């Protein structure tokens, strides 16, 4: 759905989406990195299970919610991708570990 313009260059960052390794450019948001890698479906809704992807890319619509390093409800469009980041599709409502950490 999107391609990177050839004049856009920079250092590469490796991250995973649902376990699949992907590369991004340093400084990309998680949403931009996923779109560049051809991912258009980021989550399913808690209400009907419908698939959703980014809509506004500026932090107001909350459609791009994903799980990042085990924590749900992260706005992919406001989070910068980092080396080794584990990004996952958010299925329905985010779930939390009941373990209490200090």
């Amino acid at each position, binding site marked *: 759905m999107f391609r990177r313009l050839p004049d856009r260059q920079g250092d590469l960052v490796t991250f995973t989406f649902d376990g699949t390794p992907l590369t991004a450019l340093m400084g990309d948001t998680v949403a931009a990195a996923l779109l560049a890698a051809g991912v258009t479906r980021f989550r399913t809704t808690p209400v009907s299970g419908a698939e959703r992807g980014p*809509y*506004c890319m*500026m932090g107001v*619509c909350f459609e791009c919610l994903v799980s990042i390093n085990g924590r749900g409800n992260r706005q992919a469009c406001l989070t910068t991708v980092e080396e080794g980041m584990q990004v996952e599709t958010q299925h329905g409502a985010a779930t939390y570990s009941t373990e209490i950490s200090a």
Partner: protein
Amino acid sequence: MSVHPVSAVSDLEEIYDLLVVGAGPAGLSAATAAAECGLSVLLCDDNGSPGGQIYRGITEASAATKSRLGKDYAAGEGIVTRFLASSASYAARASVWSIAPHEPETGEASGLEAGVSLAGAARLIRARRAILATGALERPFPIPGWTLPGVMTAGSAQIAMKTAGLVPSGRTVIAGTGPLLYLLASQLIGAGASVIAVIDTTPNGNKRRALAHAIDFVRSAYGLKGARLLAQVHRHVRVIRNVTALEAAGNGGLSEVVVTHRGGTERLPTDLLLLHQGIVPNLNLSLASGCASGWNERQATFTPTVDEWCQTSMPDIGIAGDAGGIIGAEGSALHGTLAGLAAAWRLGRLSERERDERAAPVRAILRSALRGRPFIDELFRPSDDFRIPANPETIVCRCEEVTAGAIRATMPLGVRGPNQMKAYLRCGMGPCQGRLCGLTVTEIIAQERGVAPGEVGYYNVRTPIKPVTLKELAALPQSDSAIKAVAGIVEKPVSANHPQSHV
């Protein structure tokens, strides 16, 4: 001098003269003007670098990006450079989720208290005044299928291009109305995207109303620019006009755009549909802070009530730029400077005469910058068909998946406004907190009741206006009385750093 970057809440001061929210043209200019008058200023912004949405990514933009996006984008560099050279503190990726009068348990209320989250931790800080420069967001565009992956806003495509050098790679359709529509179309075509159609939903009747302001428009900077853009897009792309219905269709993702126009109904196989019908003020923070607003019929949105010195109904809060009503990037920067000068005056750093002297040249440019605005507002006012969905199946609240039909069905239950309605349907109660359905809901209810939207009102927006984790809230310092109210007893002293904080 250069800005003081703040990367953790522990780096924040206890109190600032001025808190500015938003690093677009208005917020940057407000912070710069206030800091240049000697105020201690904190600017908080959602994004990682200054510029807002209009100048998004400007500090990292390559020459190729700047030339692709044009002169208007590159103009942001000056505004950002001046801010970065100021003495303000700058917290990037920081969200301000509440602003309220500071009310210590003992002593007199003074100034404001704001909730700020940054790098996974929250903190309550104080400010003598605040300027909200939260900008605008794209007006909701509720058509059937607008929630499908593959349907995005035109602004989102522009942000992807500005920040990541991404351009649409498949069959792309751009639909809607407003000056940004043709700007984006020409930028995408220039960048090599395959735009197969521009669907222009501008209502025909608008031209007649806009004509009254045509002379000002022709004399304005918008006039020539607009004409050039239109000509450029027409040369390269099919433009579909006289549109009466628009739909995004597909199973789990967009596969085609269904458009009904004077010539009949067409199905266009499409990979990416970009929607846009103008921008509206981002109201959540101003509403949650108690700033009064009213219905603005020409812009078909609520706008906060703001005087000529950017003062709202709340004594210590000003609003600058598009957040107070759409005035565009150039107007917003000038408006921000006025707001910064006004804050310095109210806090005693400028006399009234100094304020007026410094403001006079800014006002003169602002007047000329806003000259074409009424024409643009009238010409691109989106039609009722695309603001107030008639199709009962159309989703209005994307978060809770509430349809127009469901909202209309609450009317016989005696619903008078959005706040009663949401109690039945959870409409507007998802994570976007009504940002993508609020105006639609108000206008549907107004239509059903046969009254003006101003009479129906808007959602009661409450803090926190951005999601805050329980962990962040629990780690905030609590007052003795708050702890006693919950636990019945105060067991240990509250954090020594913030003895007066109050939740």
